[in-house]
């Protein structure tokens, strides 16, 4: 059972990591906590499942989900980010909250508040190795999240685009003075974040084979926790923190603490933050970190 639980934990961690990446692309780079990402991923899940039920093959369903989330994400950029760009972080956080309310309402009105369930056949086959079993979707979710982290991590830290993005995030005017098309890169960041949320939504929707309009909140919250524990500006942090939180959560449940799970998970998160205030991979902030 322990091994099986470990696999459960890793899958859950991979789910968190994927969504955390989507958050951290806009948070780490543009400094805005786009709450609506939680709903983007829900939206992509609905689109993906609907497409599959309509008989579309998986790649097309995936593409449809990604397209939906990406378009929505870019719209959010124009509606909820641009006009309040210069205000303190809370304001864009709340405008995106407005967007998430809208998306949720639209989904409820269009698909209903009942869970949308994939037909039974989609539950997928499982591979068995002795006492443990693992679904093919599970493997796909894990592989995708590792790959996404690697690609994004490289892009942000090592490439010119990544540098441009970070410069624009830190000081838009200065970045523009250096030739960075801040506007275009911002769109890119939002679009990429939408793509990630889309991938997460469709994969996760398929993995669990059911989705409701209200899944965004719980999962989104944990994903934000993962991003923060990993270190907001450190893409690789999510790969560390996701499985960590996933496994802690699963192990608490496995060892008789499902009722106090929130207490344990959030308590641990706070503890980690107190020990490493910038997250696991974030830099330290002793007096070498800032100057007067």
């Amino acid at each position: 059972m322990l091994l099986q639980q470990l696999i459960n934990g890793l899958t859950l961690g991979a789910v968190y990591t994927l969504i955390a990446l989507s958050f951290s692309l806009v948070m780490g780079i543009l400094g805005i906590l786009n709450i609506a990402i939680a709903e983007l991923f829900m939206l992509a899940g609905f689109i993906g499942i609907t497409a599959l039920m309509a008989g579309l093959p998986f790649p097309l369903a995936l593409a449809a989900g990604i397209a939906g989330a990406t378009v929505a994400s870019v719209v959010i950029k124009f509606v909820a980010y641009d006009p309040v760009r210069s205000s303190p972080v809370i304001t864009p956080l709340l405008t995106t909250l407005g967007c998430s309310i809208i998306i949720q309402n639209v989904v409820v009105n269009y698909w209903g508040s009942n869970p949308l369930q994939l037909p039974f056949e989609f539950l997928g086959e499982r591979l068995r190795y002795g006492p443990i079993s693992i679904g093919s979707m599970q493997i796909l979710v894990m592989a995708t999240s590792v790959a996404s982290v690697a690609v994004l991590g490289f892009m942000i830290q090592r490439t010119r685009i990544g540098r441009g993005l970070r410069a624009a995030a830190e000081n838009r005017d200065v970045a523009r003075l250096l030739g960075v098309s801040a506007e275009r890169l911002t769109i890119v960041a939002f679009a990429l974040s939408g793509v990630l949320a889309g991938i997460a939504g469709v994969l996760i929707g398929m993995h669990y084979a059911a989705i409701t309009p209200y899944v965004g909140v719980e999962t989104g919250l944990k994903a934000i926790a993962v991003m923060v524990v990993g270190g907001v500006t450190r893409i690789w942090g999510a790969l560390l923190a996701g499985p960590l939180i996933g496994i802690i959560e699963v192990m608490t449940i496995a060892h008789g603490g499902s009722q106090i799970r929130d207490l344990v998970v959030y308590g641990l998160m706070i503890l980690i933050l107190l020990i490493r205030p910038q997250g696991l991979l974030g830099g330290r902030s002793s007096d070498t970190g800032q100057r007067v």
Partner: protein
Amino acid sequence: MTGETLLSLDRATKRFGGITALDGLSFNVTQGEIVGVIGPNGAGKTTLFNVITGAYTLTSGTISYRGQSIGGLRPHRIAGMGIARTFQNIRLFASMTVWEHLLVAQPRGNGWSHLLPAAMGDKAARRRAEEVLTFFGLEDLRNRDAATLPYGLQRRVEMARALTAGPRLLLLDEPVAGMNADEAEELKSLLVALRDQMGLTILLIEHDMSFVMTLCEYLFVLDFGSKIGEGTPTVVRRDPKVLSAYLGDDE
């Protein structure tokens, strides 16, 4: 009062990882003097201010102020003991008007007056702010958001804010940076007046040589975190070490 040592550093060392910003620096500042600190970029001048005011703690060595060790005290305690400063990179409060800057740094005083609306209870504080406002010629700008003022005026607001804290020792980090010759001249007389009328001791960092040489009574020259020269301006400006490290052939 003059003649006493107000501030003294003994073998003060500050390291940041592999960088030694202050390297066994010792010196004394005498009460009532206007003292300059000069030295090349990255010599450790600002770091010196930072360790005096408690922004950084020393790696080793001691700092004492009026005979009392202040190493390791939190910044606001040190400020409370009468050391006020300005910043090389201007640090005004973004949400405050000029007038508010002049109230915020004042010592709390006795009683509860600081809990009452400033316009009602805080007579003494208002009077003090008014004095400093006039002293720096900022009357017309009292209700402007300080952060939208031009650079030179922002420097003045910073100095005014420091002054309202009621210091004995005023640390100024490049006070005339961004001011033209005329404005620098004006500031010079203000600083002299501060010293003469209020008995303030002033320690300042500045790269503007004509300003430093005509204002300061004594100079310390830093390079690589240690003292490479000191003395009166006339002595220092002829010191070959200072010439080669700092002034160059030009001046």
